[in-house]
């Protein structure tokens, strides 16, 4: 259909398993970027980008590795994924590195992955825990919060973030009354809320997922009248949370990685309700796919070995800032030899060994909507 050639990107997410409700929007986000690039007609002399989905099961290393092998066999040029840290590590070690495939995970946050000897093949657009912890501590301090109770979803994301928040908040003189894990997908959270409430604190910080146990905890806490306001890190910021919880959530606040101005809003506009663009990791997934494609263009090659070194270049300053919807323009700029700085929907800033450290948007829930009230 007029496209000179086809470039395939693998999308490896847990379409079944514990975060199956998040992966729909995530993959749609990644594919949105591919479509945008294809439609621009600017990519690799009008090449068409197609997505090949595969299931990682999120918590099934064996299946994820098998799926990744299948993607390799399918001839992909880059991999968006995987999602959960466990399978990401397995795929990285057993498929990506041996095959020299570049992978960008939108959601694997485990610090353990940072030190992996990855041959420069692994990147992530998900924000860094340490940075988010600092931001959150600052926000809390500014709002005059003296003590918090902290609960996290019992995986690497929750644990890492909780550690970061605890350390940072203590460093600015705050008190953390309790740090308790909660499991996603469980039947009942009254035990957790009971323990949290007993420990007390000005605010309950929920480092979880808005479609998972995090929502359950907030519901349970509201029902018991234990807290009326909550601290919401990135995983809890999304359209769905105010929708499921209702007006009681008004006044809760938090932060999410994101850029000033256009960033996420552009994405929401582009999506136009086809899926929930604010669902956790969906902007990051869009950014992951976009980064892969921009780097390919910069290297003028779809060979991972060739373009892997370009990823840091396109992602970071200096250069013209690129937001969702600007991908066509970005391709043009690259072709023209102009430097770009991809900001995207989640304020991508890759530091050190392929980790993201960006700016954060401060969010407060007002009238059932997440509103940006400032930047950090």
């Amino acid at each position, binding site marked *: 259909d007029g496209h000179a050639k086809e470039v395939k990107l693998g999308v490896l997410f847990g379409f079944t398993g514990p975060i199956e409700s998040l992966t729909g929007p995530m993959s749609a986000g990644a594919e949105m970027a591919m479509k945008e690039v294809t439609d621009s007609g600017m990519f690799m002399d009008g090449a068409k980008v197609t997505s090949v989905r595969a299931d990682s099961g999120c918590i*099934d*290393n064996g299946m994820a590795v098998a799926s990744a092998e*299948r993607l390799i066999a399918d001839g992909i040029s880059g991999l968006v994924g995987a999602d959960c840290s*466990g399978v990401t*590590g397995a795929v990285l070690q057993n498929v990506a590195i*041996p095959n020299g495939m570049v992978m960008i995970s939108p959601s694997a946050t485990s610090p*353990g992955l940072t030190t992996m000897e990855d*041959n420069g093949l692994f990147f992530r657009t998900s924000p860094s825990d340490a940075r988010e912890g600092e931001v959150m501590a600052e926000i809390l301090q500014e709002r005059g919060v003296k003590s918090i109770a902290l609960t996290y979803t019992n*995986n*690497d994301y929750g644990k890492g973030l909780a550690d970061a928040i605890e350390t940072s908040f203590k460093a600015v003189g705050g008190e953390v009354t309790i740090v308790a894990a909660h499991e996603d997908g469980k039947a009942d959270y009254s035990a957790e809320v009971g323990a949290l409430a007993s420990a007390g604190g000005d605010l309950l910080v929920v480092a979880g997922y808005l479609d998972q146990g995090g929502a359950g905890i907030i519901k349970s806490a509201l029902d018991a009248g234990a807290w009326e306001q909550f601290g919401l890190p990135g995983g809890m910021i999304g359209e769905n949370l105010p929708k499921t919880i209702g007006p009681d959530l008004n006044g809760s606040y938090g932060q999410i990685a994101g850029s000033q101005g256009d960033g996420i809003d552009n994405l929401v506009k582009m999506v136009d309700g086809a899926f929930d663009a604010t669902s956790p990791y969906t902007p990051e997934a869009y950014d992951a796919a976009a980064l892969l494609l921009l780097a390919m263009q910069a290297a003028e090659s779809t060979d991972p070995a060739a373009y892997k070194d370009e990823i840091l270049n396109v992602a970071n300053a200096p250069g013209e800032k690129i937001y969702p919807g600007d991908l066509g323009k970005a391709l043009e700029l690259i072709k023209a030899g102009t430097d770009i700085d991809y900001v995207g929907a989640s304020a991508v800033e890759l530091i050190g060994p392929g980790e993201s450290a960006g700016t954060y948007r401060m969010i407060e829930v007002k009238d059932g909507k997440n509103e940006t009230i400032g930047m950090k």
Partner: protein
Amino acid sequence: MTETVRNTLLFGVIAILILFVGFQQSWNSALLIIAMGLISSIMALGVNLQWGFAGLFNVGIMGFVALGGLAAVLIGMPPTEGAFAAGGLGVIGALLLGAGTILLAIAVMKRMGSGWLRNIAVIAVLVAGFFIFRAVLDPSVARIEEINPAQTGYLGGLGLPVLLAWPVGGVFAAAAAWLIGKTALGLRSDYLAIATLGIAEIIIAILKNEDWLTRGVKNVIGVPRPVPYEIDLQNSAAFVERAAGFGFDPVEGSTLYVKVLYILLFATVLVILMWMAQRALHSPWGRMLRAIRDNEVAAEAMGKDVTARHLQVFILGSAICGIAGAMMTTMDSQLTPGTYQPLRFTFLIWVMVIVGGSGNNLGSVLGGFLIWFLWVQVEPMGLWLMTAITSGMADEAPLKVHLIESAAHMRLLTMGLVLLLVLRFSPRGLIPEK
């Protein structure tokens, strides 16, 4: 059709399926299916030993597999510098205290005559012991977890060759099985199923939450391998040359080579275990097991110690699962406690055993391969099917989108269908017990 012909045919079908993947997708995919099929077969073999030969219903396979994984970390990973000095002794002391408390409680239970006084004494011992245990454990744990929590924060392992972890994984699983068996097999009514289910959950909870031991949900990544790294092979001129001799480019050559090595290792283990199982079963020991299965009361009256035999089989089967678990963690190169889910590690193995044919070791191997194949290949098949069904529809039709997005869920549905069909038309499995 004789039995041998039938079995050969069944295995032939598997071989064709795998060859098909090799030609259609890639040989890497095909070899990977074989490697994981071998591991699955070993797990199925362990369960089959318990279920097919002794009628023990173990729904805690997940826990034993996870213990095997723990062994891989404790044996293979290098020790964390300073961690042992910081809290190792404290932790060991606490664990000894804990064990001592339980022994003391048992001693009190045995010594004192029954009555409320005894109950109170036992509870008092346990509660006091628990608080002392926590008082010793908690600070040591905190000190260990303080050491660079983002990267380590745990004791680490012994830094020994990781192959050693396989038997050790078996021993870990066996020890847990001994504990479960001692309690559950001793109950007046047999409640093994629920006991194993529960203890498996407890084991996973410990792996997930005791960071000093396993890094918990932060995962241990980079467990050393028993085989060379692909990257090293790709960088070795000698290997590249040899691979070229076979007509492979370095990447493909190295990935295939590593998988073949793994397959050889796994196959060796499977063959040894098969040999041991078959020999044992075709001997007076096996006859005794059959007698016990037929009629426990009579076997007991004929001088066979049924409980001891059950315990033995339960331990052996669990140990095999532990070995398989260690092998799997070795191949993944990482321990991810969050991945241990009953659906994947308990029920899926059960489907393998039942579909393959319980009571028959060959059946377990067949089931292991077949079900693993379906587990990883049904998704593309489902996608293909959905694409075929919806090919007439407009690209943006909501139904089409919905159907294609649901393709991933087809996997569970297919597993269910296969299970039901086999149980309907071949109720004793594909290769039934003789």
